[in-house]
């Protein structure tokens, strides 16, 4: 799975995710990637999110929209909301994976609870950051 989230100069957010799914998947299985609110979500009032991991859990936890809701209705920061959903809620369900997210303020969060995740970020005026695994 691959994905990207962005905040542009006009303050607009967007998210995109694409995947080949899981090796040996059967019965035309789809995961969270194309499910808006589960694997991909963007809202200028909160954040933009792209997910990767075990899709069935991301669908059941409505991961992307849940993070946005925690920001919008409970006033959490992006990192607080993302950590709560990935390291607490999703992990307790047994779901493996992570997200990348950017808030309307330009805050970036990239938490994951799997062994590893390929990820990169670049905030204007800062150096680009590329990392593989924990």
């Amino acid at each position, binding site marked *: 799975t691959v994905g990207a989230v962005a905040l542009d100069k006009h303050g*607009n957010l967007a998210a*995109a995710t694409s995947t080949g799914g899981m090796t040996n998947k059967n019965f035309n299985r789809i995961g969270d990637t194309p499910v808006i609110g589960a694997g991909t979500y963007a809202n200028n009032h909160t954040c933009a999110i792209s997910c990767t991991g075990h899709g069935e859990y991301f669908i059941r936890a409505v991961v992307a929209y849940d993070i946005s809701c925690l920001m919008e209705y409970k006033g959490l920061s992006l990192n607080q909301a993302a950590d709560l959903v990935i390291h607490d809620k999703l992990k307790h369900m047994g779901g493996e994976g992570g997200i990348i997210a950017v808030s309307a303020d330009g805050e970036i969060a990239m938490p994951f609870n799997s062994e590893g995740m390929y990820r990169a970020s670049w905030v204007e005026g800062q150096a680009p950051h590329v990392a593989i695994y924990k």
Partner: protein
Amino acid sequence: MEKPFALALHGGAGTITRALLTPEMDMAYKASLEEALSIGHHLLSTGHSALEAVEAAVVSLEDNPLFNAGRGSVFNKRGRHEMDASIMCGKTLAAGAVAGVRNVKNPIQLASQVLHHSDHVFLCMQGAEEFARKQGLVFETDEYFYTQQRYEQWQQLRDSNVYMLDHSDELKDKKFG
């Protein structure tokens, strides 16, 4: 007033032993991520929209056989490639998504076409492919999506009900459904 822009991207999740991740592979993955990052950064720095930037960055990763999307997509139970993608605009809450599409070179572009040129949000399988043809998107042969590493991964699993995450080297003894 212009705001500082920001971009983040991922190339999947899973587990892989350090022994399997050679220095050459490590460099190749990082270079690919940096390339996609640069493409998105260039668009944002020149005033393009977040929607354009995320689509372009994902296209770059889809075209790279290292990642499980587009060209590097994994094999399904039948030895085929079935791809899913979605895109969403935070300003308008407009969204486009596709699932189970085959041979579409860049599924994220198809999702974008659904967002911009369809009354619907989510198209799947043959119907989504028909829409892709109408929109003039590029299709590729099965050979384009073949990678030896992905084929070998599938060979380990094809006679079982086991499945595997993007970069895993351990098997999950679980079934769907």
